[in-house]
Each structure stands twice: as structure tokens, then as C-alpha cells.
């Protein structure tokens, strides 16, 4: 009885610590990117173009698109409406993401009136089933280019993995059964969206490597120490 109480206490503390850590969008990071081009260009608006998909999941680019606007908007930038952009580009024969990514950013910059263009590649979007454990992984590559000069202003790469965690109930057989069921459930319906959201949040917000505060953020131009 005492063991269970202390175990739960430990789990609670660990849980709260995890919550706090996961909620903090900016952690301290030793890496520091070169923001000179970004600061010179100082983009106010960001156009998100069709996402290149290198994963095994054909739905990944569309689903991902539903997660990317909010973090960048919250960072203080004007983000062009992703669904409208997608439609306009498809109607103009620009739905091939690879082709769009290889072309001159200034053409799109002029077409949409965008200061900068965000090119995202999904390298991984999968769920690997290992009987007692399923690991769901997203791996994303971000490149921001100037819509006026075409130069690269910012880039980032994120890999995030998730595996359902279970508490030990004290009964080894029960634990195995629970683990097997959870692994199967995660594999059957992997939830990529929270992972993608977290990857975006970390990518955009991390001190030293994230996006500097945009014009609609109160720390605009005030965060040169961090970015």
C-alpha cells in the first residue's frame, strides 16, 4: 500500500514536471543561428507554400498544413491563408510541391506580395509498431526565404517522437497486456497532429534557433539577445 502511494506521488511529480516542461515553448538552448540576413530583411509576412512530402503517408502534407499557421501567427507575423494559397497555386498549375520548392522565391513573392516564403519538407510521418511499443515520429525541415531577394533567412529541422507511456500496475502480466493494447491502438490511429504542433512550436519558439518576434509581437526587435 505504501509502495503504491509513493509510486503515485513520484508519478504525479514527474507528470507535473513533464507538463511544465512541455508547456514551456522556449527552453534554453546552446545553439544560436545566424540572424543577420533575417534582421536585414525583417519580413512582416510569410507565405506557406505546398509542403514537400518525403514520408510514406500521402495525407501528411494536408494534415500538416492545418498545424503550421497558428504558431507563426502567434509569433507575430502575417501568415497568408494556407487553404486559399493552396487553391490559388493548384489552379495556377503550382500544386507540385517539389517544383515550387525548386523555383525562384521572388516570383511567388511578387505574385502574392509576400515578404518571405516558408518551404517545409516532411521527412518522416510514420508510426512503427513493435508489438509492445509503438513509436510515432514526425521529422520536419523548415526553410524561410526572402520574397524579394530569394536568399535564405532562416532554417530549422525538428524530429519528434511519441510513444504511449503506461504506469506499472504491479502486475507484470496486466502491464504487458496494457502495453500491447496501447501499442496496437497507437498504431491503428496514430495521432500525428499533437506531435506536429509540438514540432512547430519548438521550431518557431526555441531561444537561439527559433523565429525572432514578428511585428505583431510585443517583443518585436527587442529580442536580439535571444534571436
Amino acid at each position, binding site marked *: 500500500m505504501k509502495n503504491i502511494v509513493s509510486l503515485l506521488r513520484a508519478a504525479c511529480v514527474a507528470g507535473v514536471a513533464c507538463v511544465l516542461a512541455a*508547456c514551456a515553448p522556449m527552453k534554453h538552448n546552446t545553439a544560436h543561428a545566424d540572424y543577420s540576413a533575417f534582421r536585414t530583411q525583417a519580413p512582416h509576412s510569410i507565405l506557406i507554400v505546398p509542403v514537400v512530402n518525403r514520408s510514406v503517408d500521402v495525407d501528411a502534407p494536408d494534415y500538416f498544413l492545418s498545424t503550421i499557421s497558428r504558431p507563426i501567427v502567434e509569433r507575430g507575423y502575417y501568415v497568408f491563408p*494556407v487553404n*486559399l494559397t493552396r487553391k490559388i497555386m493548384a489552379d495556377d498549375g503550382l500544386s507540385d510541391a517539389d517544383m515550387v520548392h525548386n523555383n525562384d522565391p521572388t516570383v511567388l513573392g511578387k505574385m502574392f506580395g509576400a515578404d518571405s516564403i516558408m518551404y517545409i519538407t516532411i521527412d518522416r510521418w510514420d508510426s512503427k509498431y513493435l508489438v509492445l511499443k509503438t513509436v510515432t515520429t514526425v521529422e520536419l525541415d523548415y526553410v524561410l526565404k526572402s520574397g524579394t531577394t530569394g536568399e535564405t533567412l532562416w532554417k530549422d529541422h525538428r524530429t519528434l517522437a511519441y510513444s504511449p507511456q503506461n504506469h506499472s500496475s504491479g502486475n507484470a502480466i496486466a502491464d504487458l497486456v496494457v502495453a500491447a493494447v496501447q501499442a496496437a491502438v497507437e498504431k491503428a490511429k496514430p495521432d500525428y497532429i*499533437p506531435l506536429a504542433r509540438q514540432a512547430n512550436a519548438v521550431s518557431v519558439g526555441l531561444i537561439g534557433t527559433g523565429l525572432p518576434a514578428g511585428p505583431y509581437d510585443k517583443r518585436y526587435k527587442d529580442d536580439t539577445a535571444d534571436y
Partner: protein
Amino acid sequence: MKTAWFNAAAVTALALLATGCAQPPSEKYSWGNYESSLYGYYKAPGDGHEFAQTLKAQIDDAERRGKKVPPGIYAEYGGLLLEAGDRATAAQYFQKEQSAWPESTALMTTMTRLASDPAGAPKNAPAQAAGGAAPNTSSGSVTPAAAPAPASSTQSTQPVKPAAAAMPTASIDPASKAN
């Protein structure tokens, strides 16, 4: 008693971890159900009617509460209205986007023109703007901004072909690759 308390706390902490943390509530904007309804629209693509309704609800709710509508939302709704054929209301929402977000001016001017021009080819208009802009910047800058009817009626007589021909040249031309 204590066990039950710790149980509840641990479960709550885990629930927060699983669902809440990647999405802290926004201080600046009212997002409504934008992300989940966009996801739903892509998961089960239909006529966008449900997505449009959610956007309208988000906009109305934000305006009623005096909270800011996030960038692009008015334009997304306008785009869906345009697709559904309600050009007049679409134009209104494009104008709202332009007033709220000056960065959207170039695109919203083009979209408003599309929505107002009944004989135009809506799908190729941004291409026309770019096709006009690429070879000759002065005519390009005039074309999207020219909203009055006489100008738009001359634009509507422009055949689609030049735009279609101009677009591939503008985008695929190897000489234009900056890399």
C-alpha cells in the same frame, strides 16, 4: 483518501500533457476551431460548406467579443464563398482582410477584383497579375490595383492563354532560378 488524491492529480497531469500543452491559449487572437476544422476539411474534402460555417462562427464570435480575428481568416472565408459562387460577400471579406492586415493588400486586391468581375477567369487571375508583372513591372503594378468597371471589362476580354503561357515561363524558366 491520499491515494485517490494522488491518482486524480496524476491523471490530470497526464491528460494535460497529452492534449493541452502544445496549444497554450492565445492572448492575441481568437482561433475558434480553425485548426481542427481545416484538418477535417482535408480529411473529408467536400464542398467546404462545413469549414466555411466554422470560419463564419469563428469570425462572428471574435467580432462579438471584441477579440482579434487571426490573419488570413477573413480571406479563407472569402475564398470559400467565392468558390461557392457568392461573389459579393466574398469581396466584402477580402476587403475586411485587406483593412485588417495591410500585408495582404496585393493578394486581396487581386481577389477582390476576381470576386467583382463577373466575366473574369477567377482561377487564372493571380497568374495574370504575375504574368503582367513579370515582363513589365509598370503594367503589372497597375493591373491588380485597377478596380473600376471599365478597367475590369477590358481585363475580362484578355484571353486565358497568355496567362497560362506566361505562368509556366515565369515559374519554370531555369534562368529565373536564384539557387
